């Protein structure tokens, strides 16, 4: 039988203590339970999110800018992998270790780290080790915050960066990171630099095709999301990849080797005649494709900062000038097609003719000469041309010239045509003396590209093809990009075109011209026209120097290639036949066999008359 005992005071106290103890424990446990409930039950989502965020990293995968190749596949512009080199001075100061748990030896190593890293960086990246040391030696900034991001170098080639990193890792130095910073690389240096243009530091197009096609050339960056801790990437962690989409790839009509020839010949011509600048255009007449577009002086697209500002553009597209006697080809084409005259029309050419307030004379003084229209063109008589041009009304002539593409942009895919690059063509209400002037190439302005396309239209059978420089373009997914183009249009008849080519051939091949064999190309019949235009000087008079040019097409029996060389302000000689013809002839000699035009064995001598007996 249980004995009911009276509770002793000690037992009572013990009981109370136990009760209190249990109450306290219960309270603490309830706190813990509440906290657990809070963490796991109520805030579960945001806590998990915070934890994941500390682990999650996002890396931008840069897209490659579209590659540009020439008509034969030679790479003209491409992207090279490269990095920005970034230093973390705080990490460098502790050599990557946790500062609260470093041994003495590790602290010694960390103290030596900045100097060693600066020396390695200078060796691979160039420059002075002291400069790098200045950037990385302070782990804290003025406000007491950690410095963890200092840019040491940009656009460091990937292979070089990799070598630097392996040396840093081998020696145990931490704190150098990278971010992708690809380089736009032009393997051919100065070749076609004016056409290709260049990019700025952010790889955005700043000139040339890089600028005009920038939207297509720029790809879409991708990203990679992965999880990593301080021990490295978590292998089975979250991983999401958005592939970068590279820019569109372009194939140009430019032929890299023809471009090299054009640039070399142009440089020789400008240097030997001590001229200010020059342009050269080589074009396929039956399609308007630009095979070469050279400018001198030029620059290196890889390093546009070293070029002079005036040389960074494309003069052949942006600079308009008065074309001079080359324009007579277009005038004659209009006249013949309009039925006003033909190649054998007899023209009695006086020594001068009054026009406006003054007189039009020829480049050489003569008495009255009896020339055929062919002779007027071959000998480049201004007076004869004016006499013939006065037989057509101004609006008809103006319409022909406009239909040949003068006075408007050609629509070529290069920037800079708007404004000055459209040239100037007086409208149909021009005064008579203006019509006289434009018939022999003064009083209007054209760009080299415009004039080349116009002469191509005259000589190819009369069809105007808008000049083009992009052969095709394809996106990274394989879709073709359609480039908007003008439709070809018939400007003059085939017969008229044939007659003009015949007239042009006379200036090179006719026995009645004084210089004979030296001008011809062995094995081929070439037709051409020289141009010597006066430039307007500072005070509005025609005393500002000359523009010497020459246009040639070959083979004369069925023209395929056109070469047009323009030399601006030559000082050692100034006639087009002196300063531009040698380069034109040599370019044509190299172009014809290059594009598979077979030579003819026996070329019968040129027999059509340039003059007549009165």
């Amino acid at each position: 039988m249980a004995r009911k005992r009276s509770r002793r005071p000690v037992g009572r106290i013990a009981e109370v203590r136990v009760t209190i103890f249990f109450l306290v424990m219960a309270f603490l446990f309830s706190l813990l339970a509440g906290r657990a409930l809070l963490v796991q039950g109520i805030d579960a989502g945001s806590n998990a999110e915070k934890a994941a965020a500390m682990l999650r990293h996002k890396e931008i995968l840069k897209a490659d800018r579209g590659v540009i190749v020439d008509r034969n596949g030679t790479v003209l512009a491409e992207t090279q992998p490269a990095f920005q080199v970034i230093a973390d001075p705080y990490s460098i100061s502790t050599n990557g270790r946790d500062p609260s748990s470093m041994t003495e030896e590790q602290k010694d190593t960390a103290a030596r780290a900045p100097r060693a890293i600066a020396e390695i960086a200078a060796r691979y990246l160039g420059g002075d080790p002291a400069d790098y040391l200045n950037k990385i030696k302070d782990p804290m900034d003025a406000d007491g915050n950690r410095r963890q991001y200092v840019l040491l170098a940009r656009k460091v080639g990937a292979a070089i960066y990799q070598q630097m990193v392996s040396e840093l890792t081998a020696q145990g130095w931490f704190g150098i990171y990278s971010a992708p910073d690809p380089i736009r690389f032009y393997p051919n240096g100065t070749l076609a630099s004016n056409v290709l243009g260049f990019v700025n530091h952010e790889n955005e197009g700043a000139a040339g095709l890089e600028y005009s096609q920038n939207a297509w050339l720029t790809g879409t960056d991708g990203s990679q999301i992965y999880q990593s801790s301080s021990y490295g990437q978590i292998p089975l962690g979250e991983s999401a990849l958005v592939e970068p989409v590279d820019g569109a790839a372009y194939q140009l009509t430019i032929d890299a080797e023809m471009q090299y020839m054009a640039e070399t010949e142009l440089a020789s011509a400008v240097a030997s005649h001590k001229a200010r600048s020059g342009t050269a255009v080589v074009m396929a007449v039956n399609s308007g494709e630009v095979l070469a577009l050279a400018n001198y002086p030029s620059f290196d697209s890889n390093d546009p900062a070293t070029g002079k500002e005036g040389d960074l553009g494309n003069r052949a597209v942006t600079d308009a000038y008065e074309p001079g006697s080359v324009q007579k080809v277009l005038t004659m084409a209009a006249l013949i097609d309009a039925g006003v005259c033909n190649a054998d029309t007899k023209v009695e050419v006086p020594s001068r003719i009054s026009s406006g307030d003054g007189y039009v004379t020829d480049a050489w003084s003569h008495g009255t000469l009896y020339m055929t229209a062919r002779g007027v063109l071959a000998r480049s008589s201004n007076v004869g041309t004016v006499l013939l041009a006065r037989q057509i009304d101004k609006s008809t002539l103006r319409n022909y010239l406009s239909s040949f593409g003068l006075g408007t942009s050609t629509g070529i895919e290069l920037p800079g045509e708007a404004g000055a690059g459209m040239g100037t063509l007086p409208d149909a209400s021009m005064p008579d003396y203006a019509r006289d002037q434009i018939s022999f190439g003064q009083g209007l302005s054209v760009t080299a590209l415009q004039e080349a396309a116009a002469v191509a239209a005259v000589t190819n059978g009369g069809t105007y093809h808008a000049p083009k420089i992009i052969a095709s373009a394809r996106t990274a997914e394989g879709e073709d990009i359609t480039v908007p183009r003008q439709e070809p249009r018939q400007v003059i008849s085939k017969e008229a075109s044939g007659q003009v080519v015949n007239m042009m051939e006379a200036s090179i091949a006719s026995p009645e011209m004084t210089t004979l064999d030296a001008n011809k190309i062995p094995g081929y019949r070439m037709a051409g026209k020289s141009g010597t235009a006066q430039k307007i000087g500072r005070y509005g008079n025609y005393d500002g120097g000359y523009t010497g040019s020459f246009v040639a097409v070959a083979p004369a029996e069925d023209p395929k290639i056109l070469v047009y060389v323009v030399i601006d302000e030559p000082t050692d000689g100034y006639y087009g036949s002196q300063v531009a013809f040698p380069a034109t002839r040599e370019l044509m000699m190299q172009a014809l066999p290059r594009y598979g035009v077979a030579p003819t064995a026996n070329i019968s001598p040129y027999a059509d008359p340039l003059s007549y007996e009165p």
Partner: protein
Amino acid sequence: MSALATPLDESPRTERPLLRLVPQVGGRRINIPWVPVVILVLIACIAGVLVFTTTIQTQQAELNRLQQEAAQLSYQEAALQAQVQNLRSSRNLASRAYEMGMRPNPHPAFIQMPDGTVAGDPTPVTGDELGGMVPAEVIEANAVAAARTKAEEEARLKAEAKARASASTVPTHQGPSATPSQEATAAASGQG
């Protein structure tokens, strides 16, 4: 009277247990200790998962390592490709060919297949057909050399003129200025 001593249904009743042992039918009794077995299976499965996960993670680490290696090799390849393209560029080839003494041949000759007829006149190159095709680097190098030679010549002539002027008793205006220009022309045509 019958022979039976007692009727069957009147047999003496003794106290018998109501339950009795059921005779065993069939084989022996299987005596498996279930708890240890289940625990063992559990341990085996956990070990299996551990091995499986570790293998995957090892392979993933290997994959990462190989991807890094591939990236590094692609950087080296890109650098070498850039070198190759630079060396293959027309400028580079043309100037190296020029240095080796090659000159461009503007006399085309075509062999028409399949019969082998030759169109054009194959002519050996004399080297001066295309004077405008001298590579720009060669022109620049020549210009630099010519400028240096000219500067040296002028310096030499100035020194001579000075010596002559101080030596002659009556310095004439004609003498020092006429002689240097003649010498300069002779020197220039000799150098040219």
